[in-house]
């Protein structure tokens, strides 16, 4: 169960990737925000990718923390991009009318990294050079992508 509680911030190139847990307590969400902000100060990355691909329930509290975190990162001189929102979560957030309009979003972590100006010239050297963090992030994004398109009505 600890995987549902803990949040992780990792560094790829000069970008922070903050992965929100699937079912965090309010406290865990606050903690992740704190971690991101203190690493912003410490590492001075060019930006932060907020990975929400594990998030299955985005309520108004969680949405507010995400949009607050994004504005705080920007106040500290970085760019923040939200990545990996599941279709059902995006639909629900839009219906609820959350103030996520001001948050920048990307289709994938790769896309976010390129938006943040991380340049990897050719794919082979990219794979070779970044076999650790980037590869892990890519496969995580791929997994969540396939999870996020369940068959309609397939409740169980």
């Amino acid at each position, binding site marked *: 169960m600890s995987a549902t509680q803990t949040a992780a911030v990792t560094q790829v190139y000069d970008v922070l990737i903050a992965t929100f847990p699937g*079912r965090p*307590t*309010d*406290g865990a969400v606050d903690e992740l925000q704190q971690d991101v902000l203190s690493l912003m100060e410490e590492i001075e990355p060019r930006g932060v990718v907020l990975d929400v691909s594990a998030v*299955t*329930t*985005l*309520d*108004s*509290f969680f949405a*507010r923390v995400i949009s607050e975190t994004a504005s705080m990162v920007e106040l500290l001189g970085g760019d923040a991009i939200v990545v990996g929102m*599941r*279709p*059902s*979560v995006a*639909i*629900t957030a839009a*219906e*609820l*009318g*959350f103030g996520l309009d001001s948050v920048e979003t990307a289709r994938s972590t790769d896309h976010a990294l390129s938006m943040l100006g991380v340049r990897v010239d050719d794919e082979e050297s990219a794979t070779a050079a970044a076999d650790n963090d980037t590869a892990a992030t890519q496969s995580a994004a791929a997994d969540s992508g396939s999870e996020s398109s*369940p068959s*309609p*009505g*397939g*409740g*169980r």
Partner: protein
Amino acid sequence: MSEHDSKGDPIKPAGRVRQSGTVRVMGEEDILRARQQARGVAEEIGFSSTDVTRIVTAVSELARNIHLYADDGIMEWREIESGGRTGLELVFDDDGPGIDDVEGVLRGEHSTSDGMGRGIHGTRKLMDEFDLTSTSEDGTTITVRKWR
């Protein structure tokens, strides 16, 4: 089934109750427990994944309201059946101070700094039926339903 005498959104009585349960909501971790239980039942009933997300998000909003504003309350869930349809009914009941401006909250106008009003207003859009009664004496009861 034809009584429409309550103010606001009249909600018809539920049909047959197939199964039900209760979650006590006091602390923050109870919000997660309420969500988890609602998700389990909603999936068992066979809601689409988008509807499951709508239901669980509504539970999160309404259970958090109990935690924040009333300290103590319950969520009751019922799998209901009416006219050949299956649905999920959720009742959030507390003995808290009640809501001052119910009409404003329902229109989404009343919003405290932490966005409470918007939560209730938004929840209404996620569910098929919604009913709210609130007094300073008896606290707040919110009933929502989603049909498959």
